[in-house]
């Protein structure tokens, strides 16, 4: 690390420009969210926060087209359940693939990797028909159940378990009479905790952001996810931009919060994943 090239002022200048481009649209979203509805027509466009945030939030939650509060609650439910499930099943399967021996292991692992390359989004039409049959249309199970497992999660946990879980410890636990389930719970899961946390954060953010499938299957405007509430706001005939932006800002806030608190871990997870994949 000590022999890295030194950064010149030019490097910092370029990075500063990149950081500005990255952050400005988010910042500006909060600016418009905190101003009155005529902010959009001003020349030059406003770039500093105003004092209207509270009023905008009140109007947003009163908006009878967006069902914004329902959207927030639904998104929280969906993201939490999906995250818990993905982390649980991925650590379980990742442990099995990394540390247990069974017939067909390598072939099945290749299947999992292949699933990561398949554009499953293209299966929305039969999935929609299936949900109609199950009578799940317009209801949260339709967006929760198909997301309960991911090939990415299993693969990521398998890669991490291979190096983080000590085989000797597993053998020692077996000699002491631990069953595989106890070993998973008492030995493997604690060792996987850092990677499982990153997987959980990434899954939460992806699920919170998901748009296409909820858009297809949740057609009841009174029962949206928060992203669908945003769509309802944005497609509205009469657009009050400060209210729309208040919506986008609130929908983005949980993600920003997670990122500010755990950004270091998320970056670590993405970069480690890149080297191993």
């Amino acid at each position, binding site marked *: 690390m000590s022999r*890295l090239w030194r950064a010149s002022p030019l*490097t*910092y200048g370029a*990075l500063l420009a*990149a*950081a500005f481009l*990255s*952050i400005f*649209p988010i910042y500006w979203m909060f600016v418009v969210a905190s101003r009155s509805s005529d902010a*959009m*027509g001003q020349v*030059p*466009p406003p770039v500093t926060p105003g004092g209207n945030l509270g009023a905008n939030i009140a109007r947003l939650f009163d908006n009878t087209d967006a069902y914004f509060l329902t959207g927030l609650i639904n998104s929280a439910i969906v993201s939490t359940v999906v995250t818990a499930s993905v982390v649980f*099943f991925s650590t379980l*399967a990742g442990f*099995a693939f990394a540390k247990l*021996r*069974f017939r067909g292991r*390598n072939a*099945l*692992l*290749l*299947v999992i*990797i292949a*699933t990561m*390359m398949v554009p*499953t*989004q*293209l*299966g*929305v039409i039969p*999935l929609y028909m299936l949900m109609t049959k199950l009578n799940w249309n317009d209801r949260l199970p339709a967006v929760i*159940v198909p997301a309960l*497992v991911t*090939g990415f999660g299993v693969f990521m946990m398998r890669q991490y378990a*291979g190096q983080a879980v000590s085989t000797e410890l597993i053998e020692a636990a*077996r*000699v002491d009479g631990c069953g*595989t*389930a106890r070993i998973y719970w008492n030995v493997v899961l604690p060792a996987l905790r850092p990677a499982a946390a990153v997987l959980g954060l990434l899954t939460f*953010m992806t699920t919170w*952001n998901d*748009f*296409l499938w909820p858009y297809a299957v949740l057609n009841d405007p009174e029962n949206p996810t*928060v*992203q669908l509430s*945003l*769509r309802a*706001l944005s*497609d509205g005939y009469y657009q009050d931009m400060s209210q729309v*932006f208040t919506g*986008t800002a609130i929908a*983005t806030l949980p993600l*920003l919060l997670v*990122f500010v608190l755990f950004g*270091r871990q998320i970056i670590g997870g*993405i970069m480690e994943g*890149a*080297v191993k*994949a």
Partner: protein
Amino acid sequence: MSVQLDARPPVVPAATARPTRAHRLSRFDTRYSPYLYIAPFFLLFAVFGVYPLVYTFWVSLHDWDLLGSDHPFVGAENYTRLMADADFWHAVVNTLGIFVISTVPQLLAALWLANLLNRSLRARTGWRMAVLIPNVTSTAAVAIVFGVLFGREFGMVNWLLDLVGIDAVNWKSDRFASWVAISAMVDWRWTGYNALIFLAAMQAIPRDLYESAAIDGANRARQFWSITVPLLKPTIIFAVIISTIGGLQLFTEPRLFHSGTNPIRGGPLRESQTVTMYMFENAFAPHYNFGYGSAVAWLLFALIAVVAAVNVLIIRRLGGQTPGGRAAKGDLR
């Protein structure tokens, strides 16, 4: 993507003199519990991943809509109709156009950004977070914000263009301009992410390669193109494949970039309707023509496979011609 497979000998359960019930139970446990642990993934994926994809093909061979009580088998009719469907080809051109003008600058900018980040920086994590932050924001929210930034009357982009004396651009209803605006949105989200992926790969390149190159008189730029880029090839291929799969299925950004009547068409004259949007328009509201929509889905699947393969070939060819790449690789082994 290379996977290292573990090939250690099986763990033999401690042998006891007489097989007790507990012992048999534990044998059963070691032999079969792995299947139990991986079963949830395979079961759920079979039902909600594989089955829909395969069934899409079956549906595409039928005249099948939401309301019709029967759905007769029509063979390839949906596909032959699609081949002659000007709106479909229009969407294909839109998708490929947006894909090219977003992906090429995005990957180049990501390489450059990774190269900047791969220096001894103050506040390293801060810079990394700053470039990654677009990736964690909500896609729908960003699409709405960019829709306003690129507004014709009061958009900030047109205001900035006006400052330097360029006439207002009609970002929503000029075909090429709408491609550029949507590409800007995609690139804003993914450039930093790809930069971190490239940075991770750059950090794995041994420093002494650069030192010997410097002794041989290669300057910074030469080192970048002759050492860094060739050694990054596997990572670049990975990023290209992922961008292809994601980019050709583009939906949320163009869908929410447009508002007003019939936004699923991507503008009044379908200026930026992507193939996935066209699939949606046919398969769901207003038409609910599952058969035709499924045919669109399968052709998009084929398109993704072809474009991904072509891209990989192009990248392979490009990298293979760099003599420095070969030499550097030889050094590593």
